[in-house]
């Protein structure tokens, strides 16, 4: 086996350089430990996220197309960590392949060609399919035994059905399969696919309190120790706002919200100090200590 038989270009997205710093750090740590190569796309720009497609589809498509063009400079399929960026980038390829007019407009805007050839892959897909669950399981040094995880998909990892094609749109199991390979137990719960309030976090935090509150309550009901997410937006709403939600609803959750890469990296033996547990608002260390994982 060569040092890296899997190599990817990497689009972290804005959040991973700021509020989701621990997602970025743990991703790099995990991939390094698994021997997967990851090279950041130079000069990538914001994908436009929800606000762009919300009001200006052409802009949204153009920003994403530009990023795809930039990614061409690095070898390997494009690995994306953020579910929102993943969704936008994939949707762009999908819509532009369907509409000749839109493609021409976009190509004019970015002054270049749209790259349809570059496969856009979410980290989950890379772990579950490209690497494979067997190899992932083989790499586990510290099984997450005893940890009951509620896997939270949110909206954009699976929807709309024809875009991400990651897993069954209404009953996905990819997160459960991946974290299961690391020895964790997963709970069956009702709000896996409900919306957390997404980008209303800025303009209408009340919405987030309600929707994310329901999600936390559902996970708690199912007996989960913690939540696992694959999207910085979800993380922001469920972790950063958790205290506020507790105040608003009068419920106590105390539910650490991990990025999936944090838990996996922990399992494959990356030092906990390198996984940004200290940046989480709901302190996960008591739980991890209790389970003998740190």
């Amino acid at each position, binding site marked *: 086996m060569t040092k890296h038989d899997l190599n990817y270009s990497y689009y972290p997205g*804005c*959040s991973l*350089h*700021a*509020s989701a*710093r621990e997602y970025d750090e743990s991703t790099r740590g995990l991939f390094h430990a698994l021997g997967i190569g990851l090279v950041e796309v130079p*000069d*990538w*720009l*914001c994908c*436009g*996220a*929800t*606000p*762009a*497609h*919300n*009001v*200006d*589809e*052409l*802009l949204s498509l*153009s*920003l994403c197309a*530009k990023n795809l063009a930039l990614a061409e400079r690095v070898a390997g399929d494009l690995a994306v960590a953020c579910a929102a960026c993943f969704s936008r980038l994939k949707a762009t390829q999908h*819509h532009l392949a*369907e*509409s000749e007019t839109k493609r021409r*407009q976009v190509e*004019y*805007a*970015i*002054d270049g060609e749209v790259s349809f050839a570059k496969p856009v892959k979410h980290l989950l897909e890379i772990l579950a399919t490209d690497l494979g669950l067997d190899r992932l399981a083989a790499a586990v040094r510290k099984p997450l035994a005893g940890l009951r995880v509620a896997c939270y998909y949110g*909206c*954009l990892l*699976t*929807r*709309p*059905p024809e875009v991400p094609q990651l897993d069954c*749109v*209404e009953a996905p199991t990819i997160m459960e399969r991946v974290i299961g390979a690391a020895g964790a137990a997963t709970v069956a719960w009702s709000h896996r*696919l409900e*919306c957390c*309030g*997404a*980008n*209303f976090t*800025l*303009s*209408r*935090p009340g*919405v987030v309190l*309600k*929707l994310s509150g329901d999600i936390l309550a559902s996970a708690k009901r199912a007996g989960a120790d913690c939540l696992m997410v694959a999207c910085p937006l979800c993380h922001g709403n469920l972790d*950063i*706002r958790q205290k506020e939600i507790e105040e608003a609803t009068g419920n106590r959750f105390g539910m650490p919200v991990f990025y999936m890469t944090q838990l996996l990296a922990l399992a494959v033996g990356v030092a906990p100090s390198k996984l940004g547990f*200290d*940046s*989480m*608002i709901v302190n996960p260390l008591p739980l991890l200590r209790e389970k003998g994982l740190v």
Partner: protein
Amino acid sequence: MKHTKMQLSTETMNLGFVRKVEALSGSSVRRCFQCGKCSAGCPMRSFMEHPPNRIVRLLQLGQYERVLAGRSIWYCASCETCTTRCPNKVDLAAIMDALRKCSWDARGPSKESLVQLANRLFLDNIRTYGRQYEMRLAAVFNLRSGKLLKDFMLGPTLLTRGKLKMFHRKNRNIGEIEKIFSRIEELRKKGEAP
């Protein structure tokens, strides 16, 4: 307007607007048979005055002012639940996008100026820096929305956890990014893009 009766005729039904929404969204409006499944699963339904199915219904009747006057479209979280589950493949999420664009372009009488403002700042950020800097976004939003105290408590917490970058710099390729914005504006001016 809100509760006045609908006078239906070929004149009062703005079908041109409907066709525009259909073109922008790439989704048929007429296919909808008002089953209500979209509204049944919409996480934002309780915040909207027109549930998603009614938005489509008003569109079918060409009631364009009634749709844009409401705040429903600004409360859509783009979660795609409706689109995913619609039995008729009505792409409601895309229709919502299209409606917001229409309202945005018209700088129309949206009641949800806060969401509009957040969107606007977000896009401005991209144009100026190339990437999103959450600290700046939040700070400017608070300043401009007059909600100075909003999230006041969160700011310091996040800073101490290293979650907000106080300092940021522009992308090296900021020139190329500006070009995208201006070229899109140019296309629109020439009427070559919606």
